């Protein structure tokens, strides 16, 4: 109940941040990635703003014995693996191709425009394909 309500509010604030910063505008993503053409640096400021806030708050939050609701999760994998790198390469290609990453695409789908809905459908399909491959091929 508490974690559900927290997630709802966090999702809402996250979404407004994505919209205000320009991340829901595929032209802005295109402009940011087009460094050899007419480069638009604005998305660099999104990174600066978010990392500035979160890197400071992180130092403070991590000192707590536990989060407000629940427990700290177990430390995740820290190794740099081929999976991490290949995954990032494939993600980057899709990001450049449509100008959407997962968050902004879901936020934009609320507009009921076709493009973000198609993208989110494709994204769920890609995640599903991974799930099948991971079960049957990558880890036989």
């Amino acid at each position, binding site marked *: 109940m508490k974690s*559900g309500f*927290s*997630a*709802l509010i*966090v*999702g*809402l*604030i*996250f*979404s407004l*941040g994505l919209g*205000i*910063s*320009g991340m829901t505008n595929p032209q802005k993503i*295109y402009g940011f*990635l087009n460094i*050899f053409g007419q480069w638009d640096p*604005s998305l660099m400021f999104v*990174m600066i*703003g*978010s*990392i*500035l*806030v*979160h*890197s400071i708050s992180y130092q403070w*939050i*991590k000192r*707590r014995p536990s*989060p*407000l609701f*629940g427990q700290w999760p177990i430390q995740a*994998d820290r190794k740099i693996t081929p*999976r*991490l790198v290949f995954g*990032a*390469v494939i*993600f*980057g*290609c*899709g*990001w*450049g*191709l*449509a100008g*959407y*990453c*997962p*968050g902004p*695409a*879901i*936020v934009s789908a*609320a*507009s009921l425009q076709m*493009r973000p809905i*198609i993208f989110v459908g*494709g994204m*769920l399909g*890609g*995640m599903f394909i991974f799930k099948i491959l991971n079960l049957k091929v990558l880890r036989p």
Partner: protein
Amino acid sequence: MNIEWVHALWGGALIGVAASMMLLLTGRIAGISGIVNGLLSPVRGDIAWRLCFVLGLLAGGALLPIIIQNPFSGSLATSDWSVGLAGLLVGFGTVLGSGCTSGHGVCGISRLSPRSMVATAVFVTSGILAVTVLTNFGFFQ
């Protein structure tokens, strides 16, 4: 300073606030691809908060046109099928690489995770290459 940069900075700060709240309240990473992917392999007791988060994203999307002008403008001059293909690549790639712009780019870099720094450097470079190659082949016209 360009007004769009100011919006980017403030919007980014808001994203940082959301990621901080997620960590402080629930102890979780506000990584959107991971949260969505968890819904495809549902585990009992681990579904509701994910759905609530996605619902929050959609609610924000519905509110955005009231707050700012044309939040969803600027679609690229490409075909629908290429957008679907891009979605497939993003879905597959973010799960294989354990994160996207939010999980690696914002949360991971903020906690100085070497994995996330490498992943972010790689997906930005890969995005730049994709855009550069496609632009030079006249794909975005």
